[in-house]
């Protein structure tokens, strides 16, 4: 069991090593970078939704805080990008921790409502505070410098993001197998039962929420620096839904499902560009069909079919 879990990680590393040499042009390299970034975000979100069984419909709000921290602080206050990224992560962490306690007294649809509301408030604030954020038009983000070396082209970004992804997969796998991860899975199964055996349910829920929010914020900063531009759409409700969809289509509580979900849904808009004007209809139809026919998500469904665990 243990071995096969890491086999997946080795496969991911192998693919990431080979990929830049087989991709035909920079368009695909750009796509690969964005897939990897989304994969990292979805891994964090899946810990919350899939493993701990808590819904968040406002995660793009946390991405937005990170992205705008990386845009606003260096531009208006001359902060170093890494420091700005850290500040975004701290603000997100504090905000998530503040709202988490009251929020996680809620269940199911009430929790969905609260996280959705939080995300929408963040995105409206980003849209309105135009003197800082550029309003609905968004604003450019300064380049990311690392130790006097500026990340400029897609190739460099690719290796940075690939490394981030490997670390994320590795730490997710370990986290799930740790006492913390077992506690999370226990409270997903039955909160009462896990309370009975001594799991502090609220504390674990708050911890995983803050963890995935901070992670989202950091990846938001990374995205902002990579794209070189942020707009409020990045933090809006629809983006939150896209992220949740990546989790569910790939497979809840499946690390490799998160990767697959992120890859597929990042590629989908490119594929749909051929349906001029019909993108929204086709995207919506795909969401519905995949949930109706594969409600457990791709990887768990396939794993069950071929009769072996992930």
């Amino acid at each position, binding site marked *: 069991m243990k071995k096969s879990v890491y086999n997946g990680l080795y496969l991911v590393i192998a693919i990431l090593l080979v990929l830049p040499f087989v991709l035909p042009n920079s368009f695909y390299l750009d796509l690969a970078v964005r897939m990897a970034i989304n994969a990292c975000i979805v891994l964090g979100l899946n810990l919350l939704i899939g493993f701990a069984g808590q819904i968040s419909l406002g995660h793009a709000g946390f991405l937005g805080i990170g992205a705008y921290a990386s845009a606003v602080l260096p531009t208006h206050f001359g902060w170093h990008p890494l420091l700005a990224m850290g500040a975004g992560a701290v603000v997100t962490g504090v905000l998530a921790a503040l709202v988490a306690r009251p929020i996680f007294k809620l269940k199911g649809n009430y929790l969905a409502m609260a996280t959705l509301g939080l995300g929408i408030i963040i995105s409206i604030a980003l849209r309105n505070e135009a003197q800082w954020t550029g309003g609905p038009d968004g604003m450019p983000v300064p380049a990311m410098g690392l130790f006097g070396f500026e990340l400029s082209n897609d190739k460099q970004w690719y290796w940075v993001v690939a490394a981030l992804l490997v670390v994320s997969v590795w730490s997710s796998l370990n986290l799930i197998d740790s006492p913390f991860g077992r506690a999370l899975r226990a409270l997903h199964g039955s909160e009462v039962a896990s309370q009975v055996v001594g799991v502090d349910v609220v504390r674990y829920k708050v911890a995983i929420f803050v963890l995935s929010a901070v992670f989202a914020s950091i990846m938001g900063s990374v995205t902002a620096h990579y794209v070189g531009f942020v707009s409020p759409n990045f933090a809006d409700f629809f983006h939150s*839904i896209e992220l949740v969809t990546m989790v569910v289509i790939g497979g809840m509580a499946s690390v490799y499902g998160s990767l697959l979900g992120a890859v597929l849904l990042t590629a989908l808009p490119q594929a749909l560009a051929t349906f001029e004007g019909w993108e*929204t209809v086709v995207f919506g139809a795909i969401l519905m069909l995949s*949930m109706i026919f594969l409600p457990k998500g791709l990887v768990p469904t396939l794993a069950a079919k071929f009769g072996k665990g992930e």
Partner: protein
Amino acid sequence: MLAQFLQFLFSGITVGATYALAALGFTLIYNASNVINFAQGEFIMLGGMLAVVFTQAGLPLPVALVLAILVPAIVGVLIEKLAIEPVKGAETVTLIIITIGASLVIRGLVAVFLGKNTHSLPAFSGDAPIEILGATLLPQSLWVLGVTALVVVALWYFFNRTLQGKAMLATSFNRLAAELVGINTGWVLFMSFAMSAALGALGGILLTPITMTSYDVGIMLGLKGFVAAVLGGLGNGLGAVVGGLLVGILEAMGAGYISSAYKDAMPFVLILFILFFMPRGLFGGKSTDRV
């Protein structure tokens, strides 16, 4: 002072009535199936857009309005039959994604076939404003409030005095028990989607002469309807109506006295605060979990 306050109050309860209708729609579907229907806002949009299309096609107003309620109701039933029934008992997040998918399909189809322009309907009985204590009230606001009040009374009668209504209530309390006493719960599901789509569409039609409509108005209206339903305590019909009016009034007051830029954020700030202190909304009561 008073005039200004009244003005905000009037616009608040007018919009609030639409939120109330949307919240009733959420409540109906939630009670029948435990599904939060994120496509509810699209029914509001469909009602308004179709009313515009049918009146522009030259149909007399009453016919156009009936059609603009009927078509969304059929769409609602289609969603139930094609997308909700096949996944009975799925996880909350799966159901949420299905209804969001449905809302994207509806919005996308409207954008393709009816275009992305903003439309308006002529007010049902003129635009001459009525003066009350220095504030003005549009005749259309009276239509919105009057029809909403009628709908609430009709729904109360339906749920408390008719066998069909009682069957729907019974199903929402305990599906298995309802099935055991011979209630056709499939029919209840069907009816709740049809009724909730019709309610949404009605709200959209009534509001369009005041706020105008376009293919993308459904998202915010729907989410605020959801806020209203949660505010009143999910599944509580009276709560949905009170929640809708409260959300509308708060939004109008907030926009008037605090910041119009943050108008859309007000309902969400409100619901966060309410949920922090009353985790089941205003009228949700206490729940106990079966272990």
